[in-house]
């Protein structure tokens, strides 16, 4: 047991801290009023920020050097996240490509796909959105019914994806399509890479709970997807093996881990707010409780990363973390709104953050589904 960082890790942390401070100031001077990354204007602003991360080699610390990363371990990634959120940097609008698609390309892509797609993801040239959810396939993803029909030289796509985060601002979509019309449930899917400017593809942005156009629905009306529409093969993994490819992405270490950094940053902001607004004894207790839970999440993550570095699988325990951080995030924001009192209804970072936090127990598998997973796979209760 050793809870200290190495000298090299401490150096990297300081280097990053300085860089973030300097670069964020530069970026904010460049963009003027900072908008949410879930608006068209804010998305464009944040691509400028992503550009800065890219040019300083901070955009994908955990990628291999061969693909422009820093070969970072999970520890390095944790340090990066801690500093990133501590500095008040914006959410990563490129995260779908960097954190969801890229691990799948590393695992299931052929050499040409890796060489072509990964540098474009890292540079923010291709902007990817997820194509999982459909009107009738939310928590039950195996209910996906969008179809891909094999034709000469490509695929014909029909169907609809929805609740696609930042879909209206992205250039590409990755997702599951039913390629075997006679298949059921988890079988017969193909994982496809789809440019959104194809004929027959319509993207309509719509307002999320907070009013930002952060959601989109994507319609496929007999859209022809040529085999090389992304410059290389549009099928990731094997035809008919899409479920396996998608699930393995969801179960990669980084896909499952969410760093505690952003909640540590939120609770630090909460302490500042409480100092500015004043808190009575009961409120101080509530904040202390939330602080303890955030810190417990940090400690639990250190334990989890230790286990992963030892080569153990994360498995279903990831569901526990998802329930914890998502419900904690809401609590943190509810405390802030209570501190703000009647000012809580003003549009601002806390009211915005509160509405965003409410998505946590819904997306990436609702917390009801996560509790079922904990009960069945961690505790071994009967299905």
């Amino acid at each position, binding site marked *: *047991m050793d809870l200290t960082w190495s000298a090299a890790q401490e150096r990297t942390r300081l280097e990053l801290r300085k860089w973030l401070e300097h670069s964020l100031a530069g970026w904010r001077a460049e963009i003027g009023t900072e908008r949410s990354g879930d608006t068209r204007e804010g998305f464009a602003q944040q691509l400028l920020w992503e550009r800065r991360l890219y040019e300083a080699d901070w955009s994908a610390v955990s990628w291999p050097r061969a693909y422009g990363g820093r070969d970072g371990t999970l520890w390095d990634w944790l340090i990066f996240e801690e500093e990133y959120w501590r500095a008040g940097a914006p959410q990563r609008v490129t995260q779908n490509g960097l954190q969801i698609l890229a691990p799948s390309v590393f695992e299931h892509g052929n050499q040409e796909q890796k060489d072509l797609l990964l540098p474009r993801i890292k540079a923010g040239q291709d902007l990817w959105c997820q194509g999982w959810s459909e009107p009738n396939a939310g928590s039950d993803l195996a209910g996906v019914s969008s179809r891909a029909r094999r034709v000469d030289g490509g695929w014909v796509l029909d169907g609809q994806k929805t609740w696609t985060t930042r879909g209206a601002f992205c250039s590409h979509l990755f997702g599951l399509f039913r390629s075997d019309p006679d298949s059921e449930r988890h079988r017969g899917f193909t994982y496809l890479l789809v440019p959104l400017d194809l004929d027959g593809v319509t993207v309509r942005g719509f307002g999320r709970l907070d009013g930002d156009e952060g959601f989109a629905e994507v319609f496929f009306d007999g859209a022809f997807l040529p085999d090389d529409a992304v410059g290389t093969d549009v099928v990731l993994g094997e035809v008919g093996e899409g479920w396996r490819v998608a699930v393995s992405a969801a179960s990669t270490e980084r896909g499952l881990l969410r760093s505690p950094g952003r909640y540590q940053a939120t609770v630090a902001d909460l302490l500042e707010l409480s100092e500015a607004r004043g808190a009575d004894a009961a409120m*101080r*207790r509530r904040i202390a409780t939330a602080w*303890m839970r955030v810190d417990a999440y940090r400690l639990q993550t250190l334990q989890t990363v*230790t286990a992963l570095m030892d080569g153990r699988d994360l498995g279903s325990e990831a569901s526990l973390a998802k329930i914890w951080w998502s419900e904690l995030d809401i609590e943190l924001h509810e405390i802030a709104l209570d501190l703000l009192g009647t000012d809580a209804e003003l549009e601002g970072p806390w009211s915005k953050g509160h509405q965003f936090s409410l998505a946590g127990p819904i997306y990436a598998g609702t917390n009801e589904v996560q509790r079922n997973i904990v*009960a069945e796979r961690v505790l071994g*209760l009967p*299905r």
Partner: protein
Amino acid sequence: MRFALDEDREALRSTARELLTELCPASAVRAAWTGVPDDAAWNALADIGALAVLVPEPDGGLGLDETYLVPVVEEAGRAALPHPLTVTALVAAPLGVVGPTVATDLGAAGSVVASAGFAECFLLVSGGGLRLYEAHEVDVEPVETVDASRHCGRVRPRTGGRSVTEDPDAVAAAFDRGVLGTAAELLGLSRTMLELTVDYATQRHQFGKPIGSFQAVKHHLANARLEIEFAVPAVLYAAYAIAHGQPDASRSVSQAKWLAGRAAAVAGRAALQCHGAIGYTTEHDLHLYLKRSWALARAWGSADFHADRVAASIRL
């Protein structure tokens, strides 16, 4: 960076666990409700050095730190051991009180002290320090408590005693170690209550199915597992912080106690609810663990007390 119980700590824990499973089953806890607890498990713990983990080797101890002892204390909690492992091994031993079975709550004279009915020695607050009394040097007024296996009593010094420390910092450190041990015991109790309930929910059938297949039951137990998951690293970190004299040691024990107390409260309620009427009896074993958890949840500082300590330390 490495945050895990490594092999030798796990080995000590599993040794303790095996002997407690054998020598302190539910029947032994039940027997301690109506008589002085059987010493078999306690003596076996002494034999493996568990009572003297923190005692230097030249003085006959293992010469190890809290990160070794706390997992053993958690196992004692898991078994609802009626003996005062936290007080004897974690509070008294580092003060140089080695050998006897010790009772204290570091409270004022006359407060309710666990194990008072059978302890060999008592640590009592005196001015800013602590004095040690032999059993014959104090008056013990037995009290009836919800968990009778704790053998609580009100303890008042009568005569004699010897000074153990005059240093208020040593008393504060002793208090922190008492809090830490109590947190570990609560964590162990939480695990037992959850395990009992998972077993029961798997076996018990209603409406033609095991009740554990119903989502409402699953979610109760998932919630208990959730609270345990995040109390575990807090308790381990607190042990590390105390062992390494970290500046946040006092805060970390309060955090550990709060989270472990919460885990025990959630696991206990879930356990009782999911056992249904059979759990609401003294014939089933659940109540042995449930009542211990109620006692420990308020011992060594309530949840609010510890939340306030954390609040002060983060400058709220």
